């Protein structure tokens, strides 16, 4: 399947690209190119300059120095439209759809088929259908995007980039919101694109995917290009150390000694989304929740935190029945929550790190309405230190932190509320390799200290690395429980898809970032 990267003249070539933002040099004299029929993976930690480079290729930013060549012709891309005309299509990481417009309109946004002044709906709907067929997805071209589940929305974004005979397709973390099955399909799709002569730039944190699909790999760090090699010439360990700039101590899951039951859930349900969930969670133990997008495991966590109405069942927290009155009640009762969508539901961008961490405990640390600055600072010191959050000053706005550090801040917030039970939803989504390792060992540390963790994750390796047991959900219900050891990709997929174990060929080479075999 692999086309040797160095064959054929590069379709898109960036030479000596530098981009200076007021105060920082985001890109420093970077060369990058991609040839027809090649999948060129671009990897690097957050802040390494990947997104800056992408935005330059997309015409969103202008380079401070350096040139872009498309098919050997020097080009200046003053705006996204010009990049599109040059045949460069970008799938951005952040949700970039128009909720109120239909699938077809989103796919054709700014490239609408028109007859005279009017939009040619027939053509648009027809071609949308074609694209969907190509992607083997069923989407009603006329339905408004806001009415689709996230996974399908993500597919719309991809469809948008492929709808036109794109010569270059840039994918920035395209699988962030996708489930196993969808990821597999996507990677196959990427491959077939390349085979049809499209040049693909594939940006991802997940080295498993990268090694599964890329022909060449380029690593960026601190705005500089560290290496560009054919995949065949690289091991994941090399890539990882190139990314983080140091050898990563690779950690195994330490032995666990679960204590007494902290959280007992019986027949928990929330409308149609979640049905009869029952489990017991012990102190110092990690219970994983696995399942495809919309399988209900996310909803189950949200229900436990009071974000969704609990329509049935009961929840006992260390013996006492827990009344679900929304987040405040949950927090008071000793349940901490690290939400899946950090940007949307986690971070308070304009507040300082300090204030982000203490927001949940203010009532506890105030003396007659006035917040006790000393206590607040001591909380900051304790958890900031414990989680080794990197910041220039506690007054720094959380918005300026890297994803990993933001995640740690939110974790610190939950801990500051000194919770017995910690609900983690996708704790390492959009977090880079180095930070991921840290967060894993943090979780180990917390579990060590006797906190009970409920871990919902769409990354199997993560579950394997962390969970003692794992509930696998599908269509709103837990379909079975796998304990450490049974926890393999085929087993999970079998339960998750409700198919026989024969489906194991769905499996694609996926490993966890630290390079050990997943299954």
């Amino acid at each position, binding site marked *: 399947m692999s086309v040797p990267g160095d064959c054929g003249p590069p379709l898109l070539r960036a030479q000596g690209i530098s981009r200076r933002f007021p105060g920082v040099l985001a890109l420093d004299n970077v060369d990058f190119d991609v040839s027809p029929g090649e999948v060129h993976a671009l990897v690097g930690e957050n802040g390494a300059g990947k997104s800056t480079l992408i935005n330059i290729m997309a015409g969103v930013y202008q380079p401070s120095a350096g040139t872009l060549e498309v098919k050997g012709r020097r080009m200046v891309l003053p705006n996204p439209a010009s990049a599109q005309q040059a045949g460069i299509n970008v799938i951005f990481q952040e949700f970039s759809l128009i909720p109120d417009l239909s699938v077809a309109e989103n796919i054709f946004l700014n490239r609408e088929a028109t007859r005279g002044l009017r939009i040619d709906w027939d053509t648009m709907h027809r071609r949308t259908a074609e694209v969907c067929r190509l992607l083997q997805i069923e989407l009603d071209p006329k339905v408004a995007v806001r009415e689709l589940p996230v996974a399908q929305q993500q597919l719309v974004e991809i469809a948008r980039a492929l709808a036109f005979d794109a010569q270059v397709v840039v994918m920035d973390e395209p699988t962030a919101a996708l489930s196993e099955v969808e990821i597999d399909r996507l990677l196959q799709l990427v491959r077939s694109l390349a085979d049809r002569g499209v040049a693909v730039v594939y940006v991802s944190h997940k080295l498993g995917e990268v090694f599964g699909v890329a022909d060449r790999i380029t690593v960026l760090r601190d705005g500089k290009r560290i290496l560009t090699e054919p995949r065949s010439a690289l091991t994941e360990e090399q890539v990882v150390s190139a990314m983080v700039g140091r050898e990563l101590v690779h950690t195994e899951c330490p032995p666990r000694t679960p204590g007494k039951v902290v959280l007992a859930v019986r027949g928990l349900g929330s409308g149609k989304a979640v049905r009869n969930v029952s489990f017991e969670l012990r102190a110092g133990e990690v219970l994983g929740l696995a399942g495809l997008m919309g399988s209900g495991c996310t909803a189950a966590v949200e229900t436990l935190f009071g974000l969704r109405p609990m329509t049935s069942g009961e929840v006992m927290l260390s013996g006492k029945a827990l009344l679900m009155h929304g987040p405040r009640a949950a927090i008071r009762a000793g349940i901490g929550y690290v939400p899946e969508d950090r940007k949307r539901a986690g971070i308070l961008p304009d507040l300082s790190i300090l204030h982000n961490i203490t927001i949940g405990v203010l009532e506890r640390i105030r003396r007659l309405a006035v917040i006790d600055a000393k206590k607040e600072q001591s909380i900051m010191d304790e958890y900031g230190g414990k989680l080794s959050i*990197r*910041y220039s000053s506690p007054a720094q706005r959380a918005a300026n932190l890297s994803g990993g550090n933001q995640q740690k801040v939110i974790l610190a917030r939950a801990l500051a509320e000194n919770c017995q039970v910690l609900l983690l939803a996708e704790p390492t989504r959009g977090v880079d390799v180095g930070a991921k390792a840290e967060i894993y060992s943090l979780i180990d540390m917390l579990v060590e200290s006797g906190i009970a963790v409920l871990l919902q994750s769409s990354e199997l390796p993560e579950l394997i690395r962390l969970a003692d047991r794992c509930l696998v959900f599908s269509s709103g219900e837990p379909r079975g429980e796998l304990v450490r050891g049974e926890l393999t990709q085929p087993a999970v997929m079998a339960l998750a898809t409700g198919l026989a174990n024969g489906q194991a060929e769905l499996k694609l080479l996926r490993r966890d970032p630290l390079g050990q075999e997943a299954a």
Partner: protein
Amino acid sequence: MTALSTTKAKLIPSTLDWDVMWERYGITAVLLGVWAVAAVTTPNFATTDNFLNVLRQGSFVGVAAIGMTIAIISGTFDLSVGTALALVAWLTLWVGGHAGIPAALAVGVGAGVLMGIINGLLVTRVRIPAFVATLGMYYVIRGFSFIISKNAPATFRAPSFTWLGNGSVGFLPVPFIVLIVCALIGAAVLRYTAFGRYVYAQGSNSVAAMVAGVPLQSVTIMVFVVIGLFNSIAAILVGSRLYSTTPGLEPGFELRVIATVVLGGTRLSGGRGSMLGTVSAALLFATLSNVLNLLHADPFLQRVVEGLVLLVALSIEGIRQRIAERVSRTKEVPIEK
């Protein structure tokens, strides 16, 4: 293990400091600059009476703007302050005339707070967006005040009452002192109380705030109560300043208050803002119209100038950003090979 050792990351981009500085102190700097220039160029500006009059004039809108600042930081909004001001002022003077000062103040503040609560409930419980909820209240309150006042002016000239709006302590005008006190209280609330912290949190990202356990609904209601409180203080000052008001008092007051808050550097979308800026902005507007009067500017031209100043002041940040971008967008540079 190495990954866990605390290491300080490289400092945040310097521009941010600039932003913060401009956000917090920009308008204050402008104010001081304008004062300096006016003192030199404008005859009679830097005279005791005139300057104290400027401080006095700025205070009325300023006090109302204190509450609005908190509201806008929390990401909400109140268009009904104008008509509420008229109603409270009328009630205060009317009650004052009939039942004396204490009752007047009580009723005035009470009414303001009550209207705040109603706004708050409309926004949180009935879930009407603040903009429209308060727009509706704007009409309702105005109609209501015309109805109860039967459209007669209310007058209350007890010297001890009119002192609030017209008197001075030492050389400082009472309203200005009230403004400073209110500003300090407002700033303290924002800085040192859980409520203040919640206000910033909610304005910055309401969903995240909710997930973090911020009681959005009570905070929002409280915010509107705070508006009502400061707005009624402003109303009492205005009423006292004028001795007499009608229900049609101060059309367009709400817009002037909002303009003041935004000019003071508070972000209209919430999450950021400071009291200092609001105070300075209030004084700046007062200074402006005073200077225009002293320069005998044509009344028609005055309108234009006031609008332009608002635009210019608010454009500065945007223009600065653009320049910053243009600088960092130096086009192609020959690559040395």
